[in-house]
């Protein structure tokens, strides 16, 4: 009764869960243009994920796995479906998610091993894989309701059906560590626990073996995507787009959302987007009016590019940005290899590279 009353007053006054405030990009998240100005390694057709084995960086592009060599990308393997997640296995070989519905090992000791379900439920949207030091494999299945490509449908339906799954390459086992997540997207093993990104709750959660979750970092101003380890401890956390008050508002407007989903082409929804606006059919917000030919970089970001460097405790140390007036948006993966950070801007279909030492120097200056 009291909870219902509180719910009601929250809705009337816009407090609590009904609040549509978004944390500001401030402190360690203070905007810069490092990502926008980063060197472009290559442009690809349909890049989805990055992985590294410590020697080279690999990128999943459609059904192919490419190695990023000095001379350009070179194909090293091909799968029989669209790769939606990629990880390098410690003993050599790759783990890939195919069409979001299967996870398969390619090369290595258990070549060919395949999973298509865990905990009795089939995979629907496997979007990240990460090899754990103990030989296991962490996978996130973003949604039980919508396939991988329809992530914005899942957001607009307030999806809460994501899972964190542990796969065992050695014996083929599959175990649900957590379920009911608000779009799990990206996981990483850390000191015997598993960290997982919950995009629609804008946070990273830590799960130990018993299945109890603890918040590592929350109230992010962006929707987090994949997590990878960083040299010297800590992690790289990417965010595929930033939050806006209008989207937060629309998420609390069921009637509009329902009609929008029913009547409008998903490309033109008032929903987060991976790439910068290219068509006037996409919605425009007040601050997006170009004045004297300039689009304000601080306008509400329908799409955005963001990479965050987390400490071992999960605090944001610093961040790299591509702001609203830029195009390196929809960042879904970042991996560090040999002192260089390779970043995948899915929205711009580009692979970018930055020198970690350079980043830290320029941010300290």
């Amino acid at each position: 009764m009291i909870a219902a009353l509180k719910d009601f007053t929250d809705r009337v006054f816009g407090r609590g869960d009904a609040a549509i405030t978004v944390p500001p990009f401030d402190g360690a998240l203070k905007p810069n243009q490092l990502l926008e100005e980063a060197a472009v390694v290559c442009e690809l057709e349909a890049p989805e994920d990055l992985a590294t084995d410590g020697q080279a960086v690999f990128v999943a592009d459609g059904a192919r796995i490419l190695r990023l060599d000095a001379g350009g990308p070179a194909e090293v393997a091909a799968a029989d479906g669209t790769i939606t997640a990629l990880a390098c296995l410690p003993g050599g070989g790759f783990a890939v998610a195919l069409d979001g519905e299967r996870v398969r090992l390619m090369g290595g000791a258990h070549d060919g091993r395949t999973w298509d379900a865990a905990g009795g439920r089939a995979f629907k949207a496997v979007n990240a894989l990460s090899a754990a030091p103990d030989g296991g494999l962490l996978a996130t299945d973003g949604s039980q309701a919508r396939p991988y490509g329809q992530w914005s449908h899942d957001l607009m339906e307030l999806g809460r059906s994501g899972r964190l799954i542990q796969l065992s390459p050695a014996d083929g086992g599959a175990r649900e560590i957590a379920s009911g997540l608000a779009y799990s997207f990206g996981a990483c093993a850390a000191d015997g626990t598993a960290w997982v990104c919950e995009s629609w709750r804008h946070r990273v959660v830590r799960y130990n073996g018993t299945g109890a979750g603890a918040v590592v970092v929350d109230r992010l101003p962006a929707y987090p995507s994949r997590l990878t380890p960083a040299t010297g401890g800590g992690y790289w956390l990417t965010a595929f787009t930033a939050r806006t008050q209008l989207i937060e508002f629309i998420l609390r407007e069921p009637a509009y959302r329902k009609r929008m989903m029913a009547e409008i082409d998903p490309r033109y929804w008032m929903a987060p987007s991976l790439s910068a606006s290219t068509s006037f059919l996409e919605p425009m917000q007040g601050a997006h009016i170009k004045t004297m030919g300039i689009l304000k970089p601080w306008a509400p970001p329908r799409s955005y590019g963001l990479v965050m460097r987390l400490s071992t405790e999960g605090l944001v140390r610093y961040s790299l940005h591509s702001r609203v007036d830029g195009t390196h948006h929809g960042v879904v993966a970042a991996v560090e290899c040999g002192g260089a950070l390779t970043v995948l801007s899915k929205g711009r279909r580009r692979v970018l590279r930055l020198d970690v030492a350079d980043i830290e120097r320029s941010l300290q200056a």
Partner: protein
Amino acid sequence: MVTATETDHSPGLQGGRGAAGTKAAAATESMGETLTRLRYRYWPDHMLGEILSKRWTETAIPVMVLIAVAFGLNQAIDGFLSPASLTAASRQAGEIGFIVLGMALVMIVGGIDLSVGSTFALTNFCALFLIHVLKWPVAAAIPITLLFGALLGAVNGILIGYLRLRAFITTLITLIVYRSIYDLLILQYSNAIAGYMPDSEAWNFIGDGDILGVPLIVLVYAAVAIFGHVFLTRLRAGWHITAIGGSRRSAYNSGIAVRRTVAMCYVTCGVLTAVAGLFFAARLATAGSDIGLGLEVTVLTAAVLGGISLGGGKGSVAKALVGTLIVLFITNGLVSLSAPGGINRMVLAGILILAAVIDIRWLKNRHRIISKVYVSPTYHALPPCPSTAPDSGTPFAQNDKLRNVSAIGLGEIEAPEDVILDRHDNLYAGSRHGDVVRFFPPNYERWEVYAHIGGQPLGMAFDRQDNLYVCIGGMGLYRITPDRKVEKATDETNRSWRSVNDDSRLRLADDLDIADDGRVFFSEATVRYEMDEWPVESVEARGNGRIICYDPNTNTTHTAVSGLKFPNGICIASDGQSILFAETFGCTVKRYWFDGPKKGQVEMVMDNLPGYPDNINLASDGNYWLAMVGMRCPALDLAWRMPGFRRRMAKRLPVDEWLFANINTGCVIKFNEKGEVLESMWDLGGQNHPMITSMREHRGHLYLGGILNNRIGRYKLSDADPNFVQYDKRWGKAS
């Protein structure tokens, strides 16, 4: 005057195209949506914000309370509002009313006077002492009593005004001191006062006389109140008082004699209290120990209830009067209902607390409330948008024709909403610095400020005598003579009786054209928003605009058509009897006949455009150019059908986050009078020329303006008449 209805898309108004789309949309309209449409069509949501922004709402609310109280008590008590009862009450009301006036003055200047009750008692005693004990004549006793009141007030005034003591504590002390003096005095003199009955006609007349049935005190009160109203609202000293109450420091910095003015307010309060004391003495001739006891609470309640702010700077005589009547009705009502005295005071104190809370909360939140309720979106349904895809085969199919536009004045001119060329190929454009800038041919690199007007120039047109008429956002219609003199043509039109906002002044004159007889027809985009807020109209989507006619022959202005959804471009049609005009957020072009057999009628020319039409101008082949300032997007089209969604959005989000009409990409189309679109010209991506609000054809080129651009575009037309000059065509002259 013609008023456009909301049903823009009814079959009767159909142009050639779009009819099928309209029927499809009508068929898909659900039951709920029909209710929404009717509710927003007939319920005037926008009036709430307009009423709240009026200053008189602060008086209107106490007046409504007064009416409710009077009505309620009249129901409960027989004869409560009978003439006899009212006459008796009015004598009492007059006495309290004078004190409330004094209190109001002190509160407006930013203070408070708690000693009014004791002052009242002392001045009452003074009058009685002079007449009953010293047996002075009335004519001498009155001025001395008033002077005595002034003296008592001056004590407060000097302490608060000159010595800068806190008003509350100072008057609390004088309350006690005056009361003690009064108690000492009545101990000594009450028997002497009671033992003598003065035999003076004049004194009796003051006590219970009337003129034509109206008690004397009411007449005196009316005279004082009228003077007080004029004083506070029209005289310099009254403005000083309000200014000091609003901000004492600013008033001081502007050179107002703050200390003296504050002191004089307390003196005046003392005098007004003495007037009340005089009338009371004449009426009852009593000097009991409870006279004026607790009066300050009654008076304060009346003032606050009337709407005189405790914070100072706000208040009026009308509010003081209304507050007085409410309090008096309540106290008299409670007495008639034989409520004990304790209850009476408790009710008053309760009302005081409530009124004070409302006063403070209202003052603090007034602007926030108004800004939240002012934007009132309405239902606005458009048929499905025609495709603009490059391969769609429609006349709107996107292309790259405007990619080769060259820029004039890049980075030198800001915000050229409209451009125009004269017979000598000079190019004129407005800028947001309030100038009309002239570029010189042939290459338009050299320019000068042709005329400085001060407001942002929007639409422009030459009349037959080479006067350049310019619509100035926020100012009205102006005219620049050939010798560069700036003259105001008009800045107001007739006030419409249905509008709460004063819509006689022009807020956003937008574009114009001139008829053969010299009459200027110009659009006013909105009567609810200022120049810089014009995109908010895309959220509201109500018919807030109008078309106005200015006749230079008679120098008169009147509204021709109202209720239009952001009327914008205007162009005289080929028959010389009608204008074509664009409704930007209605996504239509319509035609209005100002002369001829169809005079006064409005007819649809093109509806369901895929974008937001802006200026309209003549093309050399007899057709018309139309600029599209922006293009429709499905998310907003849907939101236009959901006014509740937009209202909540406007309430809860900052303007920068609102879903707006997309005005970053536009195009130019050519159409004929039948409403057929002949071609469209685009610059995909808008890199070269981001926004198009106007275009003007001249000697084989198209010149493009954009209100948020820093350039003027120039585009070579391949198949246009190389000798076309709009002025010559319009006025039948040869260059």
